[in-house]
């Protein structure tokens, strides 16, 4: 069991790290550098606020994009290249494959996001902006959000084409980001059915509002550790549910 998992984890990690990690990080570093060029215009106080805000928001966007990209690519690539045939005929359970893959990309995403975060910290240090614990908490929440996206992408790609899973994952991300607002709209809606549907969606989707701490980051406010802990639990529970659904689907499907 552990051997199987470790096989999948190390394979996934090696494969994705060797493949494309440098591009994402390089792109991020260049973007951050260009951004820092336009900062000169602002007052010092504003600079600190804007740098923290923009960099961490950008990191969040990258986290979602990378989560989606790696999550979708993971299974489709194996099916396209028919690697999955050799794997699933081995003495393993399909859920082990899924969990191993997921842990593998979680590690990859961590390394990628951490590298980008280091770039951000570098810029902050150069600009002598305060580096506080809020930034690290925000980084962790961003990471959690990106692995939720990856898990959702993985789940969608167990039963649909790459195209369709991209669409569904995008829908999932947008709705999850809008989750806090859905409640407001639901309250305003007059039709019972619409209200029920919105409440249902709000209930089923994760609330990315919990992971969005941009206000605290911009103004260097403290984030209570209880919030970080609670959000981590929320994320993990959500991921477990997604992976369970994905396992059930994978167990049932034919590989043609």
């Amino acid at each position, binding site marked *: 069991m552990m051997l*199987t998992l470790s096989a999948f984890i190390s*394979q996934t990690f090696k494969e994705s790290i060797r493949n494309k990690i440098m591009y994402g990080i390089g792109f991020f570093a260049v973007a951050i550098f260009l951004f820092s060029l336009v900062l000169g215009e602002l007052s010092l106080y504003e600079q600190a606020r804007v740098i923290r805000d923009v960099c961490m928001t950008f990191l969040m966007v990258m986290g979602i994009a990378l989560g989606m990209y790696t999550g979708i690519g993971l299974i489709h690539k194996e099916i396209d290249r028919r690697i999955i045939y050799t794997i699933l005929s081995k003495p*393993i359970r399909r859920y082990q494959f899924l969990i191993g893959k997921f842990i593998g990309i979680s590690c990859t995403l961590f390394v990628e996001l951490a590298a980008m975060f280091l770039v951000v910290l570098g810029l902050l240090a150069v600009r002598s902006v305060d580096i506080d614990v809020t930034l690290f908490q925000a980084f962790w929440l961003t990471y959690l959000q990106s692995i939720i996206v990856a898990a959702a992408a993985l789940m969608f790609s167990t039963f649909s084409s790459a195209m369709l899973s991209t669409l569904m994952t995008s829908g999932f991300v947008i709705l999850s980001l809008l989750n806090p607002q859905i409640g407001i709209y639901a309250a305003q809606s007059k039709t019972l059915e619409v209200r029920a549907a919105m409440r249902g969606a709000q209930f089923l989707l994760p609330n990315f509002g919990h992971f969005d701490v941009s206000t605290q980051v911009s103004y260097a406010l403290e984030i209570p550790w209880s919030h970080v802990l609670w959000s981590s639990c929320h994320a993990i529970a959500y991921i477990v549910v997604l992976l369970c659904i994905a396992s059930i689907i994978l167990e049932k499907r034919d590989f043609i």
Partner: protein
Amino acid sequence: MPVAGAHDKKRDMTEMMIELKELSKTFYTGFRRRRVDAVRGVTLEVERGEIFGLIGPNGAGKTTTIKMLTGLIKPTSGSMKIMGYDGFDRRCSRKLGYLPEISYYYESLTAAEILDFYAKLYGISENRARKVDEWLERVNMSYARDKRLGQFSKGMQQRIGLAQALIGNPDLVILDEPQSGLDPIGRRDVSNIIREAQNQGKTIFFSSHILPDVERLCDRVGLIRKGRMEIVGSLRELLSQNQHIEIELLGSPDAEFTDKIGKIDGVKCEVHEAVVNLTLDPIMASKTNDILQLAISSGLAVSRVIERGQDLETLFESFESSPAESADHTDEAQASSASEESRS
């Protein structure tokens, strides 16, 4: 009693590795759910230690059959027993090696890393590194040990595929077109590996288009067409059907000899200068001695007598050229040929 004992022992020895009964797979494709009967009622048995070759034209259902055997797709109907387990049981996957039809592997892993990965999936924890090196050696890929698979040619990938199928020391090896994409040396290597695996007591089930390889390797073959198993049988039996005899005689035959030979039905005679070639139809096989005597008494020297069976290719072609028949039609044909047999 001793007879019964011996019988039992024989049964033990001929353990069935694959038993398929009326196995079928139907796909529904596209938006209109068009029905495709990829495999229709295949019944088949493969014994331990056999090399079984599955042949058939493109789209015949070979890959679909193999995917059912390896648990990748579930049969629509019929029953399947692999190594004594019903259906596809995970317990048999430990003893199963499989090479898919077309496969690529993780391109950024090296040859050694990929085999290590598959060895881990088989749960091999000790001596893994040694096993990996051993198999790289066996498929002649040691020189590319630390090269990434992205740089491999098709044939090199195929060798890695073969190594991953065998690294877990499986009892049953299922290979979907193992020789495709290989150069002559590669094909010979594959044949050698297959034969060696048989010598180690493994059972090999493979599909192929390369009939000479099948002919050289297999104990039994099955010919599948349009999802139906048209013939299954030992290769020797299949090829000895329609066996004709060729006789080569030296010397100039006199008119009397050619006259006599010409009168016998089922013997074809060709004369080129001082060489006479006779071809005897299968039914004339028992008359071979008489004909040879006749030749000797007419002063001809016998230089060669060859029994020539049909090769797999002619068998294959004869099935290809016969028109596609419906299910009832086949049954009728079989019934009539059976009744003919019982009459004779």
